C-alpha cells in the first residue's frame, strides 16, 4: 500500500484522511500502529504496521539447545505464558516420541486452564476499559492475582513461569495446591456473576458491541482466524476436543459457540469459556494420579532428524509449533504459528465501515498480544 502522505487533509473536502493510531496509543494493547483511512468519521480501510516488538525469537532458537529455548517461549504471549510452555514441551516430546507421565499431564492441564482464565480476565478488563467501563478491570485483576499466587507458589514466577520441562514437570505440586485451586474455583463462580451483572445486560455495552466487527464463518476460515473469534462465528472447532492433548480427554466440558460473530458474541463465548475452564479444574483436582512427574528423558536431548508440527488451543486461538531437528542438540528451525498474528489479519475486514470508536472495540475483541504478533 503506497504511503498516501500527500493526501490533502481538508476537514470539509472530506476526501480521504489518514489518521495514525500510533504505536503508543493507549488502547492498542501494546506497540501496534494502525493507519486508519477515514472518510469523516467512518473507517474506509486500516493498515496495521507491526514489528515494533520483534526480538527474533525464531532465529535465536537455532543456536540454543531445546531446554535452553524453553524460557524464550514464555516471552512471546506474556499474558498466557504457561500455555506457550505446554505447546513447546509437547512438540519436543512428540519429536522425541516420549510421553509425559499421567500425573504431569493432569497438573499441566490444571495450570493451562488456570492460565486461560487469567488471560481471559486480562482481555475482559482491558476490553471493558477501552469501551469506557472503568470498574471491571479492577475486578478482573483481583481474580487474576489469585491465579498468579498459585503459579508463584508452584514455580516461583508469576508472569513468565517456565513451569514445564520437556518430558514432564520440574517441580512437584506443593502440598496445598489442590486446596488453593479448589478455593479459587469455588470463589470464582460468584466473581463471574459480578462481571455479568456489570456488563452483560448493560444497554450501553450491548449498544457498543452488538453488530460491531462482524465476521461470518466463511471469512473466519478464509482469514485463518481461530479460537474464540472462530467459535463466535458459529464454527465449533476447539483443539482440546478435536485433537485432545495433555489430559483433556479425561474431562467433560462443552465448547461455547456464538451465532452472528459480532463483538458481543465473542464476549459471551469467552465468558462461557472461563466457566468451562473452572469446571475442568474442579474435575481435575479431584484425583490427581500419583507417580513420577518426569518421563525417561536424558540430560542431553538429541532428537532424531525430522520435523513435526504440534498445535494446542491457547487462550487466543490455535498456537502451533513447527520444529525441524537435524539430529544435533540444537533445533535446525523452530517456527511458531501465533494466534494473535493471524487474528490480526481480520482487523481490516472487521473495521471497514465502522467508526473510529469501534476500531478500539474491535482491537479489544481480537484479544491480540503484540509480543506474540511480532515474536
Amino acid at each position, binding site marked *: 500500500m503506497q504511503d498516501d502522505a500527500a493526501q490533502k487533509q481538508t*476537514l470539509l473536502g472530506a476526501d480521504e484522511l489518514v489518521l495514525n493510531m500510533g504505536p503508543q*496509543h493507549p488502547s492498542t494493547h501494546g506497540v501496534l500502529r494502525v493507519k486508519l483511512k477515514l472518510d469523516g*468519521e467512518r473507517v474506509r480501510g486500516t493498515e496495521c504496521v507491526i514489528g515494533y516488538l520483534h526480538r527474533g525469537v525464531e532465529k535465536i532458537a537455532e543456536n540454543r539447545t531445546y531446554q535452553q529455548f524453553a524460557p524464550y517461549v514464555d516471552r512471546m504471549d506474556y499474558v498466557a505464558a504457561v500455555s506457550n510452555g505446554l505447546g513447546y514441551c509437547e512438540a519436543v516430546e512428540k519429536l522425541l516420541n516420549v510421553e509425559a507421565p499421567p500425573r504431569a499431564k493432569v497438573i499441566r492441564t490444571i495450570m493451562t486452564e488456570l492460565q486461560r482464565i487469567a488471560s481471559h480476565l486480562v482481555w475482559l478488563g482491558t476490553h471493558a476499559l477501552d469501551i469506557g467501563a472503568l470498574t471491571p478491570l*479492577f475486578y478482573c485483576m483481583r481474580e487474576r492475582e489469585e491465579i498468579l499466587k498459585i503459579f508463584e507458589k508452584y514455580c516461583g514466577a508469576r508472569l513468565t513461569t517456565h513451569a514445564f520441562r520437556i518430558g514432564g514437570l520440574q517441580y512437584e505440586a506443593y502440598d496445598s495446591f489442590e486446596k488453593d485451586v479448589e478455593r479459587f474455583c469455588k470463589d470464582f463462580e460468584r466473581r463471574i456473576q459480578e462481571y455479568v451483572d456489570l456488563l452483560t445486560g448493560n444497554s450501553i*455495552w450491548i*449498544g457498543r458491541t452488538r453488530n460491531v466487527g462482524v465476521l*461470518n464463518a466463511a471469512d473466519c476460515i478464509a482469514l485463518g482466524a481461530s479460537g474464540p473469534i472462530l467459535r463466535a462465528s458459529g464454527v465449533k472447532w476447539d483443539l482440546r476436543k478435536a485433537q485432545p492433548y495433555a489430559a483433556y480427554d479425561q474431562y467433560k466440558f462443552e465448547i461455547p459457540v456464538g451465532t452472528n460473530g459480532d463483538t458481543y458474541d465473542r464476549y459471551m463465548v469467552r465468558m462461557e469459556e472461563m466457566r468451562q475452564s473452572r469446571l475442568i479444574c474442579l474435575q481435575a483436582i479431584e484425583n490427581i494420579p500419583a507417580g513420577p512427574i518426569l518421563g525417561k528423558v536424558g540430560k542431553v536431548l538429541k532428537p532424531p532428524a525430522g520435523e513435526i508440527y504440534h498445535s494446542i488451543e491457547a487462550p487466543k486461538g490455535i498456537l502451533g509449533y513447527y520444529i525441524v531437528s537435524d539430529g544435533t542438540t540444537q533445533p535446525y528451525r523452530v517456527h511458531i504459528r501465533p494466534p494473535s498474528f493471524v487474528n490480526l489479519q481480520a482487523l481490516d475486514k472487521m473495521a471497514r465501515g465502522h467508526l473510529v470508536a*469501534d476500531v478500539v472495540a474491535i482491537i479489544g475483541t481480537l484479544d491480540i498480544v503484540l509480543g506474540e504478533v511480532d515474536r
Partner: protein
Amino acid sequence: MSPTLHAVIAFLQTWWVELVSGVVIVAVVPLITGYMVLMERKLMADMQARLGPMRVGPHGLLQPIADAVKLLIKEDIIPDDADKMVFWLAPVVSMTAALTAMAGIAFGPAFEVARDINVGLLFIVGVSSLGLFGIVLGGWASNSHYSIMGALRSTAQLVSYETAAGLALVSGLLMAGTLNIRAIVDAQYSSGVWFGFLTPVAFFIYAVASIAETNRAPFDLPEAESELVAGYMTEYSGFRWACYFLGEYANMIVVGAVATTLFLGGWLRPFPRVHWLNWLDAVPALFTAAVGVYCALRAGKQPVRVQVWFMWAVALACFAVALILAVPLAVAPLKFMVPGLNGAFWFLLKITGYIYLFMWLRFTLPRYRFDQLMHLGWYILIPLAIVNVLAVGVAMILEMEYGWNRWLALIVTTILTLATALFLLRLNDKRAAAATSAVPPEGPATEDSYAG
C-alpha cells in the same frame, strides 16, 4: 474627604455582602473542587476493591493540596505554532463561565451572591453555557488534529444537550411560574412537595442532559482516553489544564445546584410542611456530630502520629459545626438563624447526593459512541422534553380551569409522556434495526477474502 472617596465608601456599604461572597466563591471553589476530585477518586477506589490515594495525609486527605501544588509547578508547554492568545484565553473562559454561574446560586435562604435578580435560574444556565467557548477555542488553539476533533465533538454534544436541559427546565419552571430562585423554592414550600416528584420525567431528562452537559460519565466522549487521547485538553498541561479541570467540576456544582433548586426543593428539608416530622430540623446537627464521633474513633487507629492529630482536628471541626447547627435550635433568641443554617445544610446535602450519582454512573457505565450519543440526544431526549412541556402545561390547565386535583392531573400527564416515550423508543428500535440490515456489510461480495 473628596467626593469620590464618599462615593466609594457608599458603594462599599451597600454592596459589601455581594463583594465578600464573590471573593469567597473565587477562593473557596478551587478548594471544594480539589476535595471533590479526592472524593471521586476515593469513591472509585472503594467501588473497585482498592484504597485510592492514601499516601498524602491521613487517608489521602491532603491529596488535593499536593495535586494543586504539582499542577502549579509543572512546566507549561505551549505547542509551537499554536495561537498564543487563544491558547491562553480558552481555559480562562471555561473557568470564569463556571464561577460566574455560581454567583447566581443560592446556597441557602441567606447565602446568595446576586441578591435574587428576577432572571435567577436563566442567568445560571445562560452563563454556564459560555463554558462551551472554552472548549471550542481550546481545541482550535492547540491545532493538533486530535484536539480539533475532540473540540468539534464536545461542542456538538454540548449544544444538543443544552436544548434538552433547557426544555426540561421549562417544564419545571411552568410549575414554579417564576425564574427567581427564592420564589421557586417558596413555590415548592407552598405546594408542600418538591417539583421533582410532581414532574419526574422532567427531572429525569434534566439529570441525563446535565451529565452530558458537563462531559461526564457515559457521555465523556471528548476526553475519551481510548480514542482521541484527551480530546481538546491534549495539549494543555500544568495550571492551564487545572483551569479546565476546575471549570468542569465547578460546572458540576452549578448543574447540581440548578437541579436541587428546581427539582429537589432547594434549601427545604424533606417534607417541609409536615409538622410531626419537625424533628428533622435536628438532623443536620446530629449528622455532623455523628461524622465527628466517627473521626474521633478512627483517630486512635492511625499509624502515623501526625495522622492521629489530623483526624482529631477533623473531628473537632465536625463537633464545632454540629454545635453551630445545634445551638440556634435550643437557644430562643437565636431562633431566627435556624432556617438559614439548616437550609444551607440541606442544600449542600442534596448537591452532594446529586454529584454522588454523577460519580456512581461514571464508575459503572461504559461510554456511548458518538453517533449513539447524538441519537439519544436528538431522537429521544428532545422530543420527550417537548412532549413533557406540553403535558405539564395541560396538567396546569386541568388543575386551574377544571379544578382537577393537582396530583391527579400530573399523574395522568406523566403517564401520557411515558406512553410517548415508549412509542419513541419502539420507533427508534425499528428504525435502527432497519438501518443496520439496510447497510450491506461489504463482505465477500465485493472482495474475496482468500485474495487477502
